[in-house]
């Protein structure tokens, strides 16, 4: 989600983000309600076809997501081999694989702002309790923005420590990283003020398209 969006104009790209998330949720519920291998396999093929043909995504945008979880899927299959049997294991693995690919299709075809707009819409009933949904959306967007930045700062600190002879990962990294992050947070707060974040209107509550 941090950098998975692949720009495009396919029907899947143009579909409303809320619809895509709803379909993803429904798919998750349905997959866990069925336990026949051929049905789950069929769903997997459909989802892959939707990604490659419907959304015209490059295969690597799907395979990269599978690569990041394959070790867990393999472990799950081994567990089922020992405890329940290969058929149940295959269904369990294929079920998760289908959901991973479906989630990859959604994130690759939907801008973060569109996803955030859906979350804001979902959070809009909280307005009655004084919660500002636009703030929730901003927090989510900023989290996605700053995760790689903080990771980059941590990597720089590790390099700086290594350059001074600390060749193992040390707990001492935490304090300087925290200091840097807090310092940056002050500037980010100023930047939000400078860019009028306090003036932000309540978003129009409709499900945005990608």
């Amino acid at each position, binding site marked *: 989600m941090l950098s998975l969006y692949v720009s495009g104009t396919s029907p899947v790209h143009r579909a409303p983000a809320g619809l895509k998330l709803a379909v993803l949720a429904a798919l998750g519920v349905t997959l866990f309600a069925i336990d026949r291998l051929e049905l789950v396999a069929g769903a997997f093929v459909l989802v892959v076809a939707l990604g490659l043909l419907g959304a015209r995504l490059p295969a690597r945008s799907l395979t990269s997501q599978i690569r990041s979880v394959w070790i867990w899927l393999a472990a799950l299959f081994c567990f089922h081999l020992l405890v329940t049997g290969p058929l149940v294991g295959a269904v369990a693995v294929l079920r998760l694989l289908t959901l991973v690919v479906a989630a990859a299709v959604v994130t690759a075809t939907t801008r973060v702002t569109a996803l955030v707009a859906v979350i804001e819409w979902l959070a809009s009933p909280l307005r009655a309790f004084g919660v500002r949904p636009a703030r929730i959306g901003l927090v989510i967007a900023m989290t996605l923005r700053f995760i790689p930045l903080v990771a980059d700062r941590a990597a720089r600190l590790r390099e700086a420590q290594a350059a001074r002879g600390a060749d193992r990962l040390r707990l001492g990294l935490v304090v300087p990283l925290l200091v840097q992050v807090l310092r940056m947070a002050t500037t980010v707060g100023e930047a939000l003020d400078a860019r009028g974040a*306090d003036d932000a209107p309540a978003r129009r509550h409709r499900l945005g398209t990608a």
Partner: protein
Amino acid sequence: MPWGRRAERATAESTAALPSTAIELRGVAHSYGDRPVLTDLSVTLTERRVGVIGANGSGKSTFARLLNGLVVPAEGSVLVDGLDTRTQSREVRRRVGFVFQDPDAQIVHPTVEEDLAFGPHNQRLPAGETARRVEEALLRYDLAGHRDHPAHLLSGGQKQLLAIAGVLVMHPRRIVFDEPTTLLDLANTRRVARVIQELEQDVVVVTHHLDLLDDFDRVLVFEEGRLVADGPPGETVPWYIARAT
């Protein structure tokens, strides 16, 4: 040619009518805790291009932050076109944009296009106008090819251009730059310098890169929280260099 002439013209047309701003500081003093950073400062800025120089810790950045209300003075007042930054900070910030030294702290959305739309959205501009301004900025700063690019993967120069563009799409009348080239290499420093040179808006630039100020109208020199020199760059910059060496 790093960015298109057609796009430059389009942006120039959209900002050419911007009126200039007058910023007045009256008897301003400020401190962080017990540490005074600015003392007895009274100055009025009406020139189109104002440079601010001085050693580290001389009060330059605090001065810059005073100009759009990011910092409210402990004593005295700051008026932007007559608006007091203490009581009318929102309106002041609409008139005076701010570009930070570290663009990473200024870019708040994950992708380039989304970040550009952040300011106009906060200004409650219609979606069509926001899209037009974003498109214009993407073209002008050669970022169109990076529209959906994650901001953290941009180069240092591209990040600074994005930070500047993120302020420009809000159409401020004056832009304050706080050491905009400090983290950049030579090529990107020149590029950002050219961007500042071509801006239609009034600018205040805090910098250690003295070359940047050659064609400026006025340069302020700060030393230990005091304004110690004020005049055209031809006089103040050599004076500052002689004093620093």
